[in-house]
């Protein structure tokens, strides 16, 4: 039996059916890039909430395999909204080899 508390009710994963409807089969291209730990940039105009939601969902569906303790250790990084000032941060994340998802 799965117990879900009120905090988990606000999890972005509950938007997953909606996002899949909007993106369609192309969502699997995003899934492949996220699971392959690539660098994914979401380009949007304000407001950025849908883009951030999409970034979170891409990370959720591509969490990958669990470690021995049952915890996913190498999740793709969600950087949030980035700008030119974050170029060094992006390069650092790239060097980590875990990939990243960012909004701009």
């Amino acid at each position: 039996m799965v117990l879900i508390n009120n905090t988990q009710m606000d999890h972005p994963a509950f938007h997953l059916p909606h996002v899949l409807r909007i993106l369609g089969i192309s969502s699997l291209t995003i899934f492949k890039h996220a699971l392959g730990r690539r660098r994914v940039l979401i380009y949007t105009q304000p407001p950025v909430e849908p883009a951030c939601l999409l970034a979170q969902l891409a990370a959720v569906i591509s969490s990958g395999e669990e470690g021995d303790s049952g915890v996913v250790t190498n999740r793709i990084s969600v950087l949030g909204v980035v700008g030119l000032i974050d170029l060094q941060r992006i390069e650092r994340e790239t060097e980590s080899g875990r990939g990243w998802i960012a909004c701009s």
Partner: protein
Amino acid sequence: MFVVPIFGVRSSDSLSGTTDAIFLEKPQLYDLVIDLTVPSSPRSNRPSLLVPRPYGTTNTGKPINRLQYVRFTWSDVKLWAELERLIREDEDDKHHHHHHCRPRLAVAASGGVARWIDPWRIYEDVCMVCAGMWTGTPSPKNASLKLPEEEQMNGRRSGSASINSRKTPSPAPSTLGSSSNRAFNTTQMTRRLSVDPRLGPELPPPSSKAIVTTLSLLSTFHNHTAFLLDRLNAVLPTNSSAGSSDQDPIFLTPKEVTTFDLGPMSDVDARFIEWLAECKGKKLKVRRGWRDMFMYLLGFT
């Protein structure tokens, strides 16, 4: 020199600009761009996906990349069919339950059929926040947008609507009907409301059915990931035992690619397997030469 577009001009009382579009001029920084501002095709309002491709080199020998549109591969159809089945079950249940994300955007085609004429049948019942991913307003033929809870929402949150109308730009002139424009305005407004808890009561929690659907979708992705990684683990030791070190690339034939439920002809699928191996610290290459393809088509490899 970069062309820096300035957008975000809201009204006469504010002017804001951003240089973030400069990222589109630097494709070497990323592997995939999801552009929520441009539709993937004139007939579709879905976001477009672009990947950088080598285009040439500069005088100094630096590679030049160019953004190209990328679409799904045929190997995606099987997994998508499973996901779509789960989504459709959720749709069938929508008339009996209230969902997490409300108010929803219901689409009613002419003739009383409550769905658009769409081969994938996915343009239904999305929350206003998610609807912001649509690039512009949906414009299917013979269809109109209906907002069943629009009046209630306007009545409950009329003050916040006036705030948003001052902050949000008017939608671009469109040939769509007034109902579509009204839907666009409401989408903007509700998205604004969703991030400010002072502007109304919290939305109701997701129903049990919505929770089951979400967990089923996540489970499908997880199972598919487990399948891919199992296949990869099965392939990597076999090839490594042939006497190669971790630095030497492991070659995969087109036939072995099919065991991943991926397309041997697809460039995206080939690179996807290489990425998965890279995550495990292995170097893997998929053979995609004309001879490999020819042999595969003849059934030899």
